[in-house]
């Protein structure tokens, strides 16, 4: 026990107090380092079974509630899917009534440009401002106290398929926003706005010339394949980089010591790889950038010349911890391609990449060259169905963020276990329409189960435990210092597992399916609360929310065949659940 406590203390120090010590949840990821770890201990393995709903709040909507619920002071903030209402709930009053509600008046046409449901992954908070993105491409800052609009920046053009679904990230005085639209042939970018007035500080694209990508003299990627002039053009056939994707629709982490913004880039467009020979820089990779200038420091490509829509946007968990005997500044990344990457975040070197699910699309990652070794037998081909590619286009793990507990040293990865049959077809770029070029059918993966919560032992480079779920897990994870892991399922169960053993300790059936992000906070009454939005949606939930006809196994890009039973097992809805010990 002493040893554990020591590790805990050391970890806390090393991670620079990664979680909000005062019981707030000011960032969607829990902390700029994206640990999703709460140091609250009131709810623990012993008593979690006594959790009871404290209050609920109905949004009245029927799309994916993916938003994190921020808690700052005694107010809770979250954003609904389109029409993107921003709610502030007053936690001091019983039942947490609405303090204010902000309606950004988003353009309904944007609903047709969002690949994976009209979701929003949450607001950001700093300096008395709540910053949110809207599906129709705007970033809006609202006064946290009054709900009055402070500024609004129009960043994305829905006419060409650009939308904003990610949770903005505030680092220093910058609001970091990236676009969605990898399935629409949109050129991906990340922009830094000045928190003060919403003016553009810098903007970096992820295809095209170095000056657009903000690659300059500071850029020192670890591997030679990422070095060279204008790779964002040279690794593409002529002009195709203009529709090349590399969007930033997932998670942005921030290393305050190094003042580095670290984030992943999305899949190249179109999915059909035959239409874009080359390594397709700078898609499906991870960038580290200087927060002030936006200049790139290093880059690593998870999936060069991505074959399967394997975006690289999953969370990058920044931890300072022991690695093979010495303290290192690490980056943990459970990738869509199925590997748990451990990178040295100072330079982008891959230290470890081991699969956390069954993979046959690649043979592994060559640690020497840093290159993914694809399996030629599973190479997506134009005009030919390749059967049983694992993982699928949605990845071993999609956007749903994992959590890391410094206490256990485990990464808690909510993920899917699916395989797919895919045929590449010629995609044609027509602005504002999907640019995919693949027909996909999905099916349960090896073992017959479709999802799991997996605890990954970083030090041991192996799976510690697996909690299988019938359906893919599409909600984020939360781990607390009480050693409890929380996540939800598509059929509405909100579960608590023992962080060390994976034992199911408690569960609660919510109205709808859960694709949200659980958070823990200390309420004004001093007690620990666990909050989760229930409301099925997202790519996988489209089967239900968009009434996909599952007779078409390729409906919703193959999700119709992944979860044809979803309409039977759950229903749409939108309700916030907040639990406390009863």
């Amino acid at each position, binding site marked *: 026990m002493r040893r554990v406590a020591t590790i805990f203390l050391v970890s806390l120090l090393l991670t620079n107090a990664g979680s909000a010590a005062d019981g707030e949840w000011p960032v969607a990821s829990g902390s700029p380092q994206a640990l999703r770890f709460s140091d609250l201990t009131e709810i623990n393995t012993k008593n979690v079974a006594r959790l009871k709903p404290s209050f609920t709040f109905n949004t009245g909507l029927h799309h994916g509630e993916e938003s994190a619920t921020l808690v700052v002071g005694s107010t809770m903030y979250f954003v609904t899917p389109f029409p993107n209402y921003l709610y502030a709930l007053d936690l001091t009053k019983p039942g947490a009534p609405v303090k204010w509600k902000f309606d950004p008046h988003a353009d309904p046409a944007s609903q047709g440009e969002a690949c994976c449901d009209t979701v929003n992954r949450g607001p950001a908070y700093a300096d008395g401002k709540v910053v949110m993105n809207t599906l129709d491409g705007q970033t809006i800052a609202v006064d946290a106290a009054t709900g009055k609009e402070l500024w609004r920046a129009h960043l994305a053009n829905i006419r060409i398929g650009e939308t904003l679904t990610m949770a903005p990230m505030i680092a220093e005085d910058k609001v970091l926003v990236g676009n969605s639209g990898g399935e629409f042939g949109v050129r991906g970018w990340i922009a830094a706005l000045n928190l003060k007035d919403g003016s553009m500080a810098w903007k970096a694209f992820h295809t095209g010339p170095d000056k657009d990508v903000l690659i300059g003299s500071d850029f020192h990627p670890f591997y030679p394949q990422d070095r060279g002039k204008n790779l964002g053009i040279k690794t593409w056939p002529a002009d195709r980089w203009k529709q090349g994707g590399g969007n930033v629709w997932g998670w942005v982490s921030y290393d305050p010591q190094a003042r580095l913004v670290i984030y992943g880039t999305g899949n190249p467009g179109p999915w059909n790889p035959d239409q874009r020979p080359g390594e397709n820089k700078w898609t499906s990779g991870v960038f580290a950038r200087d927060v002030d200038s936006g200049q790139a420091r290093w880059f690593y490509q998870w999936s060069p010349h991505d074959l399967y829509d394997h975006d690289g946007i999953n969370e990058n968990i920044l931890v300072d911890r022991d690695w093979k005997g010495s303290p290192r500044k690490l980056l943990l990344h459970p990738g869509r391609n199925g590997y748990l990457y451990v990178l040295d975040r100072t330079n982008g070197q891959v230290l470890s990449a081991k699969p956390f699910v069954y993979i046959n699309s690649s043979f592994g990652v060559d640690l020497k060259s840093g290159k993914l070794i694809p399996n030629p*037998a599973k190479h997506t081909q134009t005009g030919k*169905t*390749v*059967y*049983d590619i694992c993982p699928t286009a949605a990845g071993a793990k999609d956007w749903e963020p994992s959590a890391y507990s410094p206490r256990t040293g485990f990464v808690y990865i909510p993920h899917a276990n699916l395989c797919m049959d895919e045929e590449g077809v010629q995609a044609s770029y027509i602005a504002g329409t999907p640019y995919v070029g693949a027909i996909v059918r999905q099916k349960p993966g090896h073992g017959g189960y479709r999802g799991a919560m997996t605890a990954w032992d970083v030090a041991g480079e192996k799976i510690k435990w697996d909690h299988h779920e019938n359906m893919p897990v599409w909600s984020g994870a939360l781990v607390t210092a009480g050693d409890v892991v929380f996540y939800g399922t598509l059929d509405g169960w909100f579960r608590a597992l023992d962080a060390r053993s994976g034992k199911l300790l408690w569960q609660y059936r919510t109205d709808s399916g859960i694709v949200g992000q659980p958070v823990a906070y200390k309420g004004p009454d001093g007690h620990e609360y666990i909050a989760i939005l229930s409301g099925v949606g997202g790519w996988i939930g489209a089967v239900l929310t968009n009434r996909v006809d599952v007779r078409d196994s390729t409906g919703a890009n193959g999700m119709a065949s992944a979860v044809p039973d979803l309409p039977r097992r759950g229903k749409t809805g939108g309700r916030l659940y907040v639990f406390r010990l009863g």
Partner: protein
Amino acid sequence: MKVERDVSALPRHGFGTHSLTWWGTLGFMALEGSGFVLAAGAYLYLMTLAQKWPLNAPQPDVWPGTVVAIMLLASLPLNMLMSRWAKQEDLVKVRWGLVGMSLFGIAPLIVRCFEFSAVNVRWDDNGYGSVVWFLLGLHTTHIFADVAETLVLTALMFTRHGQNGRRFGDVHDNAFYWYFVVLTWLPIYALLYWVPRAA
């Protein structure tokens, strides 16, 4: 007029190689057999092209097909007796033998219905499913056709038309064709159930 032969003493109906319908039956067996061989060839051809086999489907369950094979083989002794009784023109034995053969024909048809679901693939799933159903369908048509003929013959033999040499010839040819139905099943059975396991 120079008469060189007189055939008045020759029989007016015959069995086996003397009978036209026997040869006709043989001819149809040859062409249907050729169809079976080509369909089996298509199966093997698609198998060599496929990424894996069975293609995107679980292995077929062997039991219904095996039961059909056993049932068909079990019908052979009676079928042999049928040819003999028909040649002996023994009406009573032929009548009840035909009833038996009808049952021996209907029973595998019933099991065959289960076989279509036991192959664990639908005809419209992929090329593998298509060719499996094609072979099964082709053979089922043959059982069905022979059973239908057997039933009609059974009915016929219980009428006043039964006691007639030509009818016994028909019964004999019917038994002859049944051998074909049984024997063609064995290679198809091996192809459908054991080749994918060996592949």
